[in-house]
């Protein structure tokens, strides 16, 4: 069927299309306006902004740690209200089903789960498969696993390390690779309590920096489109801006992505030895073109921190609210779950301001990404309010007025006038993520792109406008109308499919037999285990 989205304000920076016009869809893809086109369905988009479906590059939506967080916090579900009645499991709160529906309502059509433990790949993909409507993807975690650390210690060849990374990406069906506090989880198992970029992991004598550099090179040489996704050392501690700056410098001309930079935007100025270094970090990002960052914005309220940075989560146990935590030593990273409430106190206010500074002081919307590190800085349901803060300086000023002056004195935020435009929003949440992840079939509205389209009715209230899309199409299916899900469908998990090297498979077989007492088959699974028709979509590597 030919669908015409008529008379909307089209915002498609990739194809240079800005302004009123029609958008045509046929068979799940965007097509050129047909010469003698008779639309089977016409959607009136007058008074609406029309963009590609949004892409979230970093949101913890499924997998072992996320599910443990659900288990730990049956009371957390009230944070995800309200929900429309009369749809299956619509009142289930923080479930896989809600995740897909709530994302779709906002016009998001692809979301990346950024922290999949290799050993929990099957579990992660089963959860993702139960998230309706949207497409998903995963980044697989390496960098605290004995196999890699041993290879680095033993000066294994670059090819051998690439073979291992390729096998891991292939067997776990990942779209990219993430390293989380490289080496720290392994060091923590040997009772190390703080760990920085040039500290070494006991028993291996390998530094965090060397792990990052090794993985960065392997990912690049394998042609994985997404650069190595780095969660730096010292997350959350005053002075961590120094670690982030050192990590940015360590990119050394090769692509590198730094996750949730806000959590490293902290200096040690002021009476409380806690201040904003966001302006300095933003300047570094501005002048380091090979680096991309996402923000991990903090928004006020109750949330839960879910992280495979077990060392950091262990040390944050005392701040848990409510007072219960899970700390899990896994085969590689493991992780920790620490519920937390961001209050409008000095620290919360400063964290909030630092995130916004990073958004507003980073010049290039192609290199700064829209995240709250869901749920670590805030649940993704806070996105509409965050769009409002970025696009409306008056909204910022009103909130700043409610916050402690002592905190606002340590940030440049009150002096920043910039407001994001729709075009910049379309770059930051559509075009740039597609480019960063190597998804050339989305993030824009050119002919041939998958018909993932979000239509927003213009409203002075940005949060309302971007929070409840007028229409959302996924692969050409109308899935949301007037902010409500009208059609369930199942998306796919986007993955790379490098061919594993046979010698490496033999080596891993022997390793797993000897060290774990289990054959490699225990750690792998067939696609049919997901029990959906098309659980995966293949994305090519760079050639």
């Amino acid at each position: 069927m030919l669908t015409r989205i008529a008379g909307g304000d089209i915002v498609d920076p990739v194809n240079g299309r800005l302004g009123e016009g029609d958008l045509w869809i046929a068979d799940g893809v965007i097509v050129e306006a047909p010469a003698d086109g008779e639309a089977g369905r016409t959607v009136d988009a007058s008074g609406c902004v029309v963009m590609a479906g949004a892409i979230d590059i970093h949101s913890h939506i499924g997998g072992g740690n996320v599910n443990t967080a659900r288990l730990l916090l049956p009371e957390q579900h009230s944070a995800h209200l309200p929900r429309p009645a009369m749809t299956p499991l619509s009142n289930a709160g923080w479930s896989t089903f809600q995740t897909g529906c709530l994302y779709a309502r906002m016009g998001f059509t692809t979301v990346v789960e950024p922290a999949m433990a290799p050993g929990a790949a099957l579990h992660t993909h089963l959860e993702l498969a139960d998230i309706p409507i949207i497409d998903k993807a995963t980044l697989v975690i390496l960098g605290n696993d004995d196999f890699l650390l041993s290879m680095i210690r033993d000066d294994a060849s670059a090819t051998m390390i690439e073979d291992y990374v390729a096998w891991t990406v292939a067997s776990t069906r990942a779209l990219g690779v993430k390293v989380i506090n490289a080496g720290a989880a392994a060091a923590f198992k040997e009772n190390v309590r703080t760990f920085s970029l040039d500290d070494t992991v006991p028993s291996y004598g390998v530094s965090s920096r060397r792990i990052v550099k090794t993985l960065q090179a392997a990912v690049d040489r394998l042609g994985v489109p997404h650069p190595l996704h780095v969660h730096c050392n010292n997350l959350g501690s005053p002075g961590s801006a120094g670690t982030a700056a050192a990590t940015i410098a360590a990119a050394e001309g090769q692509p590198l992505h730094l996750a949730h930079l806000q959590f490293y935007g902290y200096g040690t100025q002021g009476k409380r030895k806690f201040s904003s270094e966001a302006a300095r970090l933003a300047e570094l990002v501005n002048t380091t073109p090979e680096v991309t960052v996402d923000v991990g914005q903090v928004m006020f309220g109750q949330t839960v921190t879910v992280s495979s940075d077990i060392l950091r989560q262990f040390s944050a146990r005392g701040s848990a609210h409510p007072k219960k935590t899970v700390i899990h030593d896994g085969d590689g990273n493991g992780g920790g779950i620490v519920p937390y409430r961001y209050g409008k106190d000095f620290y919360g206010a400063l964290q909030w301001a630092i995130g916004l500074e990073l958004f507003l002081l980073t010049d290039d919307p192609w290199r700064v990404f829209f995240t709250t590190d869901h749920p670590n800085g805030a649940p993704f349901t806070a996105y509409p309010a965050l769009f409002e803060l970025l696009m409306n300086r008056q909204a910022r000023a009103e909130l700043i007025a409610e916050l402690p002056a002592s905190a606002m004195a340590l940030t440049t935020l009150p002096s920043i006038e910039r407001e994001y435009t729709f075009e910049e929003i379309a770059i930051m949440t559509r075009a740039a993520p597609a480019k960063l992840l190597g998804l050339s079939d989305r993030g824009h509205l050119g002919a041939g792109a998958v018909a993932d389209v979000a239509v927003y009715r213009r409203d002075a209230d940005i949060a309302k406008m971007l929070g409840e899309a007028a229409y959302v199409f996924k692969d050409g299916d109308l899935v949301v109308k007037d902010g409500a899900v009208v059609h369930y469908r199942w998306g796919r998990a986007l993955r790379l499919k490098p061919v594993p090297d046979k010698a490496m498979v033999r080596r891993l077989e022997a390793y797993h037999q000897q060290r774990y007492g289990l054959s490699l088959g225990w750690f792998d699974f067939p696609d049919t285990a997901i029990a959906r028709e098309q659980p995966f979509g293949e994305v090519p590597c760079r050639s």
Partner: protein
Amino acid sequence: MAVAWIGSREALVGDAAAKAADLLQSSRCPVFSLDTDIHGTRAAIALAEQVGAVCDHAGDGGALARETALFTDRGAMTIAPGETRRRADVVAIVGELPEIHHEFVGELATTVPDLGGGNPRRFFLVGPAGTPAPPLGKGRKATPLSCGGQDLCGTLAALRAQCAGRRTALPVSNFPAFAEALEGAHFPVFLFSGHAADGLALAMLQGLIADLNRKKRASGLHLPASESGWGSALVSTWMTGFPLRTGFARGFPDFDPWRCDGARMIAAGEADLHLRIAALAPEPPGKRSRMASIVLAKTAGPAAGAAVTIAIGAPGVDHDAVVYSSRLGSLRALGARTPSDLPAAAAILRLIAEQVGSEALPC
């Protein structure tokens, strides 16, 4: 071979599923007891939501509830089985462990840690005198840590106090040996289960582990009382936000470990229909029970007293399956060992769901 029965009469699977759907739709308070694989659980929860049923584990629901309560109420420090094998130089078995885990404990006894220091492994057994220990092989024995007539929780309390340097009314037997082992240990691991440990004991153990982590490392390996039970709890958690003992009678998932205790609801006469999903044909209901039941089990004949019986295959035997593996500490794909035509529980549950009529979960 017949594969479905209405009462004791052979029936087509479709007819039996339709009959089951009728019963579910007219039931005021259906209870589902699950002993099935991951996809069976997914389908069961989808059906439960449609008909307003309560889902509980079919076996020792109490043990599973104690394990989930540890997480929902308190949190925990845990470790993966693989890391336990590779790092644990002190292994403390906490109370009686379910037999399904004995093989792994035996494996720990016959291997040595290869990461983190190179100590050999030493075994301790925490609990009242007479706590059965898994066989460690070759005459190896776990050193018992008991405390007079104290139960498991009391023993753990005394052990925790002594580890913290506090005096106790009665000393824990062999404490000096344990203290010395901890002193030289790189990574002590406590093996625990809700099988024989009550909630207080599980919480006390976590208190001890937290104390040890002030200065050194230690953790607990969760060995679930039931693998299928823990697997179902994980699925329920992602699908609904809550573990088992969640009901849908009020139109939304309602997690209530007391009210949604399936065995209690049946005993108290609250439930009026029992859907049992089991690997093997379950015991017939007690004589006094008038409650109707639907049984999905690997059976060659109708289940005694059941209104509907449908034969299903065993996960990983008759059909491919995904299950929770405590050996892996995560979900695992299993190929069918001896493939047969017997359907998976998930397929039958979906067939019933299609007949129920109201909007089905897109599952």
